[in-house]
């Protein structure tokens, strides 16, 4: 154990970085759930797809090409999914939705294997973000600071849109009571579609951002699914604030668990999840108060 302040600053930044990566991923999933009451387990696969697109485009278009095109590609895939499957599954009940989207995960894993092969891929950090920056007395990788910044930016943008714009008001109305919102003249169907596609785009963005830090493998979507679900269950299904709080809790518990209680680290987050489910089954900050 270190008493050096820099060590703790470093771990704090690590925790924040992991939290923001998870936030980008879980916010799309939770907003889709909040609005449509639809459990999309294939969300992780969309993230993997984004990472693959970004990694394969980075050769031709550089990092920023992938950064822009991956969310667009995933959004397009999301739109296809919406019109072929999701729309007709909306009233099918949670069990059918879970089974269908769970099946989609396996389809996606094998599809990525067919297209990109079995070998893991990697992509490089953009030139501007190479190296480390001195911050609060520690040297921290610039790219990780970029992830933290991006997460905060997305959070600020979503908060602003949801609380200050008319579209945000319509979405909040839809979350509260979609039938009433439809009666008031809101085209709920179109709003569902846009929110679903936006959620997919955010998953693609998370994939593109994660590609240079993590390895891009066919099962990365499956590996990230459990942490994402933990985040939204702890935070409260369907709420933006819940996604933020859940991500922060997950990031900090994982990071400081690894430092302070290494032997218990892998069970710590599950114990916390169980505790939340027992004490506050609706999550810490549920969508409807």
């Amino acid at each position: 154990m270190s008493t050096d302040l820099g060590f703790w600053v470093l771990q704090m930044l690590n925790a924040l970085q992991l939290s923001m990566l998870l936030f980008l991923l879980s916010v799309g999933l939770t907003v889709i759930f909040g609005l449509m009451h639809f459990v999309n387990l294939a969300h992780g696969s969309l993230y993997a797809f984004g990472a693959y697109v970004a990694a394969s485009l980075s050769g031709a278009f550089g990092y920023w090409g992938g950064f822009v095109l991956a969310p667009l590609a995933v959004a397009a895939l999301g739109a296809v999914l919406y019109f072929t499957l999701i729309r007709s599954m909306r009233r099918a009940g949670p069990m059918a939705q879970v089974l269908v989207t769970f099946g989609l995960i396996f389809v996606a894993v094998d599809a990525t294997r067919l297209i990109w092969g079995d070998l893991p891929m990697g992509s490089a950090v953009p030139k501007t973000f190479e190296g480390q920056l001195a911050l609060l007395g520690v040297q921290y990788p610039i790219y990780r600071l970029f992830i933290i910044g991006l997460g905060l930016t997305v959070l600020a943008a979503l908060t602003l849109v949801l609380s200050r714009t008319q579209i945000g008001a319509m979405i909040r109305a839809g979350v509260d009571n979609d039938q009433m919102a439809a009666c008031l003249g809101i085209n709920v169907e179109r709003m569902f579609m846009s929110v679903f596609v936006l959620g997919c785009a955010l998953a693609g963005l998370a994939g593109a951002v994660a590609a240079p830090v993590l390895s891009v493998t066919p099962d990365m979507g499956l590996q990230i699914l459990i942490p994402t679900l933990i985040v939204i269950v702890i935070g409260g299904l369907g709420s933006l604030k819940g996604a933020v709080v859940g991500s922060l809790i997950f990031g900090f518990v994982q990071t400081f668990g690894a430092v302070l209680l290494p032997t218990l680290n892998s069970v710590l987050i599950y114990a916390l999840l169980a505790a939340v489910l027992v004490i506050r089954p609706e999550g810490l900050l549920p969508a409807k108060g």
Partner: protein
Amino acid sequence: MKTTLKTALAGLAISTAMSSAAFAEDIKVGVLLPYSGVFAALAQDIDDGFTLGLETFGADSGATFQLVREDTEVKPPVGLAKTKKLVLQDEVDVLMGVVSSGVLGAIRDTVDGAKVPLIVANAGNDEATGKDCSPYITRISFSNQQVNRPMGQWMVDQGVKRVFTIAPDYAAGRQMIDAFTTAFTAAGGEVIGQDWPAFQKTQDYGPFLANARASGADAVFVFFAGGEAISFVKQYDSFGMKAAMPLYGSGFLTSSLYVNAQGPAAEGVITALHYVPTLDNPENAALVAAFKAKTGRIPSEYAVQGYDSARALIEAVKSGATDRQTLAAALPKVSFTGPRGELKIDPATNNVIQPIHVYETVAGADGLTQKVLATLPAEADPANGCTMPAAIN
């Protein structure tokens, strides 16, 4: 009706057996590899290496080889079911493959009980040639301890005295690191800290890297493989740690199979393995040329394990073995000089004895390549509780 059919079939079987015996010997090989799942790329390399080995050395063995391939999917129950199918239904003469140690553990008793020889072409868990050893199981690949133990002495000789170790928390990770630390401390080194991130559940190695940095070690010694190895090496470099704390490890960390996905982050990492494609010997030159011509890829350690498994099988056939019983007796006696150097099988455990190569990953003309720094002499693993029954000699 039933009996007449059975008699007819039996007659047919006998006549086929006799006619084939009159000509070349036909050896039926059951191939157990995870063609789908996380190890699919490894399975492909082993399969390509094995078929290349059969093509290269098979011609003058006087036998023909018929392969029956089964996908074990990295799932022990699936591996067991496929093994039973190959043994009972296909009646193979010999089994080859097994990538996952979990699958090897699951099929061990079936293979041993059915007395079918198995050539292990990857799975490295120490028990398979330790307390769970079997006269029917011959390992041609490596054992987890074998690859890591020699690095203990070598690193102390290089002046590295204090290390921090990191490896995923599962059986192979523990065995790889424990073999290294035992040898390292015996040679006078000191392990000043260890971290065990959760296997397949850790995305961010940042917390562990900060621990390693704060420990003030001379160097970090790690084991990771596949996707985790790529993430780890890239994250290690992104924190700028390579300059202050050189990264050492088990050679799978920077395997030629996926080192190019790590990119410049892998440059300067020093690891030890039983094979690298840049080994300078005529057998390896022949393998690299033939493998490239066949697949367009450079052979990885997995490819050479498949290739040498074929070579071992053919050497056994050349010594006169034809069926389960004789192959099982002949396989542990094979020895040859292949791309990895001189190989022989330890009669005490049926594990391969081979030299270990220390290499540095360096930038080459087209992508990353391996610079061999030292070749450490072959050394048999301790028997680890293996008492080899003399049942089949």
